[in-house]
């Protein structure tokens, strides 16, 4: 069944008839990032208004690969179980050169995590679930409210908004710009992306067919069915398959998008005509970002702040990690508990995260789309050797899939397992009655294992019974430990043992970070 696009109801906003009181936070864009931002703030007790120029979820599947970290964030927002249940869970990727498998990876080789490595789920489903959740939380969602101007002031911004019933002004202390890769707000502020644009185009198509392809990511270099170029096949729910086909730079995107051009290409990939075309698009490869994501009262989040080439699933997943890093800080600023200066921590950490995503994406792009000359020479040498020597296989780069970065924190650390070091996402583990990550989030937590947790003002204590998973992920060879974990589930500091004063000092530093 094709997706049933149901328009969300537009209602005339109060600002059309009388000036509205100044809002705490206005969110521009009701895509997955804007909606997640609104729900995250609501979870922290902060109301927001969400403005979107459209009144329907994303047309076409667009972002389809949701990483384990994104699923953990979506779980905290209340839509994790739905997303996993509906989505296609996968963890194995296979890369072929011509007809031979040259490399494969398994993204989650261990158990004891609530969320799988990845699920594939069309962006429109994720948006649908987030809209339902936002509505249940009473969030002010305003469809067909198009922001056409942003005036920045020292401590607030004034938005000019157009609706089907006319225009109005809306004031907000903070504006979260979640309006996507082509961000109109970025243009209104006169801000430019910096970085690389690659001379490469891919055709992206969703087809509906009955087939028994496994739930794996298949990527081909130079397959027989697509002369000398690259291709990707990936399964989504509802018998929808994503197919990406490299086109090269010398093709006309408008011509290549036409069904009479697309359908014969896909027939060659799947080997038959028993499919229907659901959606097509063409994209170019870009690896660019804003120099800074914080511009006075305007905060850029997601694709409006940074854009990466695909095949690493680093766009949507990177955006949700932005939400993760911004929500707890912005909520504390709005409540007056912290100075606006702490938003520099959001900027610093997510610029760092974006740069890691940009680096990985541009390396993958160079491999998939090498320039003529020496880049092509080495790429073809790696592919040639990959079927002959083990060392060349991990050099085959068909995309390095999104993993959360480890923030470079200058924080107390101890000789404990490396994956749970300060700056990393706290690894999930089963605990009595549920999962560790479900017991974290929203506030600072002092996680004490093998000892009592010192009482620390402003933090919640958690002392689960130690099991094998907790031991392996948090203790290693140690008999006891204390972790301080931020509201975004990032490890802030850790010790074998610590006093309440030491933990308080680390918490103050984490707010300032």
């Amino acid at each position, binding site marked *: 069944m094709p997706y049933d696009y149901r328009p969300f109801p537009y209602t005339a906003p109060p600002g059309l008839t009388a000036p509205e009181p100044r809002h705490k936070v206005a969110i521009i864009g009701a895509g997955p990032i804007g909606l997640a931002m609104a729900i995250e703030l609501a979870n922290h007790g902060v109301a927001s208004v969400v403005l979107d120029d459209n009144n329907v979820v994303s047309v076409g599947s667009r972002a389809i690969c949701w990483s384990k970290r994104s699923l953990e964030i979506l779980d905290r927002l209340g839509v994790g179980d739905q997303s996993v249940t509906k989505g296609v869970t996968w963890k194995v990727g296979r890369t072929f050169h011509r007809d031979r498998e040259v490399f494969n990876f398994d993204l989650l080789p261990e158990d004891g995590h609530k969320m799988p490595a990845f699920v594939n789920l069309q962006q429109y489903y994720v948006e649908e679930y987030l809209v339902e959740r936002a509505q249940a939380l009473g969030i002010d969602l305003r469809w067909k409210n198009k922001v056409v101007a942003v005036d920045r002031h020292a401590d607030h911004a004034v938005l000019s908004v157009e609706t089907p019933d006319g225009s109005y002004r809306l004031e907000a202390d903070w504006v979260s710009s979640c309006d996507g890769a082509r961000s109109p707000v970025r243009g209104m502020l006169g801000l430019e992306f910096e970085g690389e644009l690659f001379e490469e185009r891919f055709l992206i198509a969703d087809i509906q067919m009955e087939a028994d392809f496994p739930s794996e990511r298949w990527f081909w270099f130079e397959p027989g069915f697509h002369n000398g170029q690259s291709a990707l096949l990936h399964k989504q729910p509802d018998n929808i398959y994503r197919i990406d086909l490299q086109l090269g730079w010398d093709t006309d995107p408008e011509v290549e998008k036409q069904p009479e051009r697309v359908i014969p290409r896909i027939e060659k990939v799947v080997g038959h005509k028993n499919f229907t075309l659901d959606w097509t698009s063409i994209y170019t490869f870009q690896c660019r970002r804003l120099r800074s994501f914080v511009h006075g009262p305007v905060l850029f989040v997601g694709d409006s702040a940074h854009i990466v080439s695909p095949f690493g699933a680093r766009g949507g997943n990177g955006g949700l990690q932005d939400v993760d890093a911004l929500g707890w800080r912005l909520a504390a600023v709005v409540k007056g508990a912290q100075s606006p200066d702490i938003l520099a921590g959001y900027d610093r950490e997510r610029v760092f995260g974006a740069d890691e995503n940009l680096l990985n994406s541009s390396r993958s792009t160079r491999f998939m789309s090498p320039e003529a000359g*020496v*880049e092509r020479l*080495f790429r073809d040498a790696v592919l040639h*050797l990959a079927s*002959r*020597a*083990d060392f060349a*296989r*991990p050099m085959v780069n068909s995309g390095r899939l999104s993993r959360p970065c480890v923030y470079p924190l200058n924080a107390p650390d101890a000789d404990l397992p490396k994956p749970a070091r300060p700056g990393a996402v706290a690894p999930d583990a089963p605990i009595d009655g549920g999962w560790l990550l479900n017991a974290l989030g929203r506030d600072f937590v002092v996680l004490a294992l093998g000892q009592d947790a010192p009482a620390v003002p402003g933090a919640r204590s958690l002392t689960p019974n130690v099991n094998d998973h907790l031991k392996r992920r948090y203790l290693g060879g140690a008999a006891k430990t204390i972790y301080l974990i931020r509201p975004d589930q990032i490890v802030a500091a850790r010790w074998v043992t610590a006093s309440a004063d030491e933990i308080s000092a680390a918490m103050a530093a984490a707010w300032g970070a």
Partner: protein
Amino acid sequence: MALNTKPNIADADGFYAKLLAIHRGLNEAQSHALNARLVLILSNHIGDAEVLDAALALARDGV
């Protein structure tokens, strides 16, 4: 000694990027010359005749 064909570079993506970067701005002849020098430098570092013979054979395989 046997030729090690198992992955042996900790950050293979980073090394690959450096390998491309060192060629930036060179024309084709200059790139060929750089590659030749690199092969000679690494071969000397390896030294072991058995390893070098195996490497030569692997590089020629399938051509």
